[in-house]
């Protein structure tokens, strides 16, 4: 029943999915936090840029962004992100697109975390003479991140599911392999079940584990 699987690198495809997720998660955590810092900063221009970025990027479909990185950035403008072969180029382009998209959601999550820190703490910090970067780094962000584990976990899971979009530019991850297998084999239900279970194995434990972590680290108020 499962012998048709031998011609396919199932684990390899899911490994690419995991890699896409991890690289994009790290990138969008950094860029998203920077965006959130911009959105609460005293400099109006930075606030405006942050707001504009989030509102624009959130409303464009991820598929449009990813296809644009391939058709627009690579094929029209020859941006290859320092890679030579197509596999690496497409992989890096997909990570770039995923980071650009996901950081908008990370930014919103972090910002909502900043809002959970009581005003009194910020006022106290300002009263003892801390500057804005100090207030943010020493008082607000450490608490914000603890309360934001849950929302960030949601973003991470959405990101895991969104990596399938990379199939649109030919990154050899799970969804692309699924399409190929469906075309070549007459085992539709079985193939779909395998990929469904594969994704459940990726997303469900992440959700449960990070949900548990979120409860553990949340600042009790």
């Amino acid at each position, binding site marked *: 029943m499962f012998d048709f699987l031998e011609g396919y690198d199932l684990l390899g495809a899911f490994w690419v999915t995991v890699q896409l997720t991890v690289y994009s998660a790290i990138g969008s955590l950094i860029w998203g936090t920077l965006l959130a810092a911009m*959105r*609460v900063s*005293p*400099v*109006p*221009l*930075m*606030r405006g*840029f942050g707001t504009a970025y989030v*509102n*624009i990027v*959130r*409303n*464009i*479909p*991820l*598929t*449009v962004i990813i*296809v*644009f990185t391939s*058709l*627009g950035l690579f094929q*029209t*403008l*020859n*941006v290859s992100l320092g890679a030579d072969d197509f596999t690496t180029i497409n992989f890096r382009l997909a990570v770039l697109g995923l980071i650009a998209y996901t950081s908008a*959601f990370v930014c919103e999550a972090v910002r909502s975390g*900043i*809002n959970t820190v009581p005003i009194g703490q*910020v*006022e106290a910090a*300002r009263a003892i003479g801390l500057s*804005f970067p100090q*207030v943010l780094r020493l008082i*607000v962000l450490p608490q914000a991140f603890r309360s934001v584990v849950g*929302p960030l976990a*949601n973003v991470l*899971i*959405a990101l895991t*599911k*969104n990596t*399938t*979009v990379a*199939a*649109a530019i030919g990154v050899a991850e*799970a*969804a692309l392999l*699924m*399409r190929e297998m*469906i075309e070549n084999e007459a085992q*539709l239900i079985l193939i*779909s079940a395998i990929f*469904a279970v594969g*994704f*459940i194995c990726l*997303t*469900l434990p992440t*959700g*449960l584990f990070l*949900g548990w972590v979120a409860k553990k680290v949340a600042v009790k108020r």
Partner: protein
Amino acid sequence: MKRDATVLYDVPGPRARRRNLLYTGLFLIALAAVVWWVVASLADKGQLEWPKWEPFFTDSRVWSTYLLPALKNTLIAAALSMVIALPLGAVLGIARLSDHRWVRGTAGAVVEFFRAIPVLILMLFANAALSEFTDISPESRPLYAVVIGLVLYNASVLAEVVRAGILALPQGQTDAAKAIGMRKGQIMTFVLLPQAVTAMLPALVSQLVVIVKDTALGGAMLGFSELLASVRPMSANYGANTIASFTVVAVIFIVLNFALTTFASWLERRLRRGRKSTGAVVGADAVEELATPGEHVVPPDGTK
């Protein structure tokens, strides 16, 4: 709960104002450098030439042949998915609150299953299943596949929205209905559901944004002729204007979704202000959370 960001820093004095001005300048320089680099590389590849952008402003055929039919397909798929997913989601959501364990368990399993799987996987499955088990013509198959994929996923998300809406209602509503002798079904249909629907309107509208965005998957992977798919033929017919075509398509998506987002938050503000309601509102931001497998809606008072 949005708070004014200015609590994080004092009202700037003369020195702080000077410093802020300096930061503004630095940021402006950095931003200008990026913009200059983008514009320069665009110009270098000839993507800024007027003829590449002109068709979108002067040639009505590009709209009547490509953009408007594509936009229509996007909207049809989104509307169909929403209309079908909503009742399905309501049934699943109510079933998850059932007193019978097996009904609750089955609905729960279905919802968790479809929330944990990427929409694209569902669409690919639907597409292949349609070609194998039905005789729907290959031309209309992508639309069916897109709608089926979106319905399966969004019905399970909407089920959580409905559940959250019902749980957000004050317990007193159920108690009062029981006190005047209503049966379980009556309580649900006459008391809880109508109020829950109002409470979850903002979440429903903002879920539409997710659906509209996901239709683009059908264009990229299944050959569904929606907005994203119209980029290729447009740039083939109007002189390799890839960047221009992408820009126009992105702008259409942004305008459409921004309008929906704004409407959702306006609706939320209005409902929160309303004096007649019970104060139960499932906000537009809640959807993201509800779309995550393993997450559960916790009612505000911590009861079941």
